[in-house]
């Protein structure tokens, strides 16, 4: 069985950044495995711009962003396998994979970096009533057809959910000559970024109906239309508000789910809220030597944050294989308090934080003119004024190593106050 220092599962932005960073930090043999025919993951179907403002200080398209990392990966001569599906990862870090040219291959790695990304929530997952005709796509699948393969998915389009991919596809399809009739969002606020509401919907006069959802799908063969109704405070349809929209296509942009089927096989503990692995500040999971980064851990709003997080994972995986990781020492637990849905990382090894650690979180509803307060017991470690927070955008708080020393009872709680 071939042995590697580090095996990276997934060649999207997370896997690319992690592999590069690991190599730069002294990992000997790094193998990156991806199931697609090219590296870059979902970025390769993101022809739109808005990537890289934090990392490169310029605005790139998804394909441009990916290309920078792919180029670097190749320059560092990092080994990678394409069109290869990983079947399983064991706790002993034996990875079983399969492809057309080599068949079934098992390798053993000293460290594993999980970077499988996420998948889209489907119609079934949200139980939309109605018939089951053709013409219903997740936004990401539509994006692949339109951008990579050059096919139209339809002409008259309704979109359910105002996730970023859905809004971006609304613009993309409009530019290609389709008519996007409406975007319906069950929540009282848009799921994606404000910028996308403006530049993808408002620019093209596409109505966004908040507090609305689809209550029926019509069509025997191809979808013929949907019924949209307004929702009350309890998210139940209000009788009498139903309106029928004729359409030949329905796109779903109703959320993303970290893809952790492989992680479960490696016995990695998952956070039921994020759907991703429980990690510490080095992005190490509950299994020593198994790291995770990017959307497999929690769904990010910006790819730049994925890159940063993945660099942390890569760096620490390299340290681990070079025997520099050391023990745990005192471990601080992060706890979501009032108004906070989750925090990543879940644990901080206090003595391992070099200068500072970034805590990523999402709020559970819209807040205006509030504070994000980080506390340990009664001691306030940091407080930041926030004019506006909403679940669609991630919040980030930087905590210095110095201030962590004040975390006396080894727990940090973050509240919206």
């Amino acid at each position, binding site marked *: 069985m071939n042995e590697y220092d580090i095996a990276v599962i997934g060649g999207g932005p997370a896997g690319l950044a992690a592999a590069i960073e690991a190599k730069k930090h002294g990992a000997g043999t790094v193998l990156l495995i991806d*199931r697609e025919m090219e590296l870059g993951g979902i970025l390769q179907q993101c022809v739109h711009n808005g990537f890289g403002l934090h990392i490169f200080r310029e605005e790139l398209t998804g394909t441009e962003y990916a290309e920078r990392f792919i180029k670097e990966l190749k320059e560092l001569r990092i080994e990678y396998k394409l*069109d290869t*599906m990983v*079947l399983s990862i064991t706790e002993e870090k034996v990875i079983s994979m*399969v*492809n*057309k*040219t*080599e*068949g*079934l291959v098992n390798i053993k790695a000293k460290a594993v970096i999980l970077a499988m990304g996420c*998948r*889209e929530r*489907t*119609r*079934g*997952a949200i*139980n939309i*009533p*109605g*018939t*089951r*005709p*053709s*013409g219903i*796509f*997740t936004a*990401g*699948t539509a994006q*692949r*057809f*339109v951008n990579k*393969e*050059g*096919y*139209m*998915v*339809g*002409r008259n389009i309704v979109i359910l959910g105002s996730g970023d991919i859905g809004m971006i596809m609304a613009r993309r399809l*409009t530019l*290609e*000559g*389709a*008519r996007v009739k409406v975007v319906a969002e069950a929540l009282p606020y848009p799921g994606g970024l404000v910028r996308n509401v403006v530049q993808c919907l*408002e*620019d*093209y*006069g596409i109505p966004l109906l908040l507090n609305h959802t689809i*209550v*029926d*799908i*019509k069509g*025997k*063969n*191809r979808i013929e239309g949907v019924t949209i109704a307004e929702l009350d405070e309890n998210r139940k*349809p209000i009788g009498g508000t139903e309106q029928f929209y004729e359409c*030949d*296509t329905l796109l779903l942009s109703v959320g993303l789910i970290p893809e952790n*089927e492989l992680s*479960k096989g490696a016995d990695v503990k998952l956070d039921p809220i994020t759907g991703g692995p429980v990690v510490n500040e080095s992005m190490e999971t509950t299994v020593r030597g198994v790291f995770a980064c990017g959307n497999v851990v929690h769904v990010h709003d910006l790819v730049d944050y994925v890159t940063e997080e993945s660099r942390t994972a890569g760096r620490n995986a390299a340290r681990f294989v070079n025997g520099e990781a050391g023990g745990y020492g005192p471990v601080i637990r992060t706890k979501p308090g009032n108004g906070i849905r989750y925090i990543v990382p879940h644990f901080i090894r206090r003595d391992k934080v070099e200068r500072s650690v970034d805590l990523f979180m999402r709020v559970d509803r819209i807040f205006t003119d509030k504070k994000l307060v980080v506390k340990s017991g009664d001691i306030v470690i940091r407080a930041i004024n926030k004019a506006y927070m909403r679940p669609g955008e991630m919040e980030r708080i930087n905590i210095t190593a110095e201030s962590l020393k004040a975390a006396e009872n080894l727990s940090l709680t973050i509240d919206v106050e």
Partner: protein
Amino acid sequence: MYDIAVIGAGITGCSIARELSRYNIKILLIEKNSDVADGTTKANSAIVHAGYDAKPGTLKARFNVPGALMYEKLCSELDVPYKKTGSLVLAFSPEEMKTIQKLYDQGIANGVPDMEIIGKDKVHEIDGNLSDEVVGALYARNAGIVSPWELAIALAENAVENGVELFLDSEVTRIEKMNGLYRLHMGDRFAEARFVINCAGLYSDKVNEMVAAPSFKILPRRGQYNVFDKSLGNFVNTVIFQCPSDSGKGVLISPTIHGNIFIGPDAEDIEDREAVQTTLEGISYIWEASARSAKGLKPNAVITAFAGIRARSSTDDFVIGESKEAKGFINVAGIESPGLTAAPAIAVHVADIVKGLMGGLEVNPGFNPVRRRVVRFMELSEEDKRILIKQDPRYGRIICRCESITEGEIVDAIHRKAGARSLDGVKKRVRPGSGRCQGSFCGPRVMEILARELGIDIKDVVKNNRKSYILAGETKDNSLYEDIHDIAAASRKV
């Protein structure tokens, strides 16, 4: 000119066609949809019933028990997954225990083997997640689960291998009685047969009325289901029923043959035989009702919902036999539950009817009951996987990540007799798209394979029937802009 035309390629028609292919006769199997197993067969509870439900003396009772006993051999010949899981009918009160006793007695009268009335402790031993409110149950070890559409497809494939002709996309719209034969019109073409077997499911009354006065009516009854992610594992191990009511066997919780869990169905009488939509009310009802049997199912583990329509007859029993008015026209109608279970036994019975009408049948010397094995890549040993990929590298390319289905398996499903022609056709045969991502990852890849293997443009790949197109032309088409000229100028003036 055919000896026999079978109308309808659901579980009933496919069972009969395959049974008759044992004999030296010319058989035509006709289906209005683009694939076999596309009506009620693809949307039902998928249970092989032990046989205690049907009232003694009915046709349902007569064919259920022998049908169930044929499953093991049939599924092994045809390489279709089938599992004898056993079933429990739960009682929640002493009153319901009386119903359990009645079912048991009925089972004895019908000849059901391996039944037992058990107490609460034994129930929880069998399935630990069941409600604490359970007081006892009828345990029938002979009940099982199967994939109805895979069985029907396997039957059709085996039938075609043994000489049956299959017409797809062929709706019988008119039947002419001629001298000693029937002319079946399907749009602008027709076929002639000496004998006709009406297995038209939800439309079997309409087909009967093409040659005879109405003698039964199909009263469509819809049932809705939710299917759960495999991560729920063996939430239940047996088929869990509640005490039956007038409208059916109640809401089930059951494992599927592929390792999922489902709940359903409700029972709603409807007019429209095509109304296979799910509704808020229907889905809420099955959640409410199933929660009585077991709690702990979470809505976020649902991967899909579907509805099926049972072809219930106004006579409240199967309708099987030669029409009184039309000689040589045999109705096999009203095959609602336990129709799936009874189908193999019904097929043998219908073959006997045909033998009687034709004055005996000569055996088909080439008949082979065994279907070519289906490769299920993930079930192979590591060594066998290696060997297979060496022989055919397409087994080394996984197309469906949720169910781990390889390109090799998909290509095989397309090229078999009565093979897959559509996205749903592939899904029904080898399951890509049945998992948690519901085809959002593998869909485009399966479409590419279909286009390549069928030699068609990818834009012509359909979901199931001919009008269910998936792609609507290409991008970069300037003719699409004509009527949307002013969108860019959409104003946001106050």
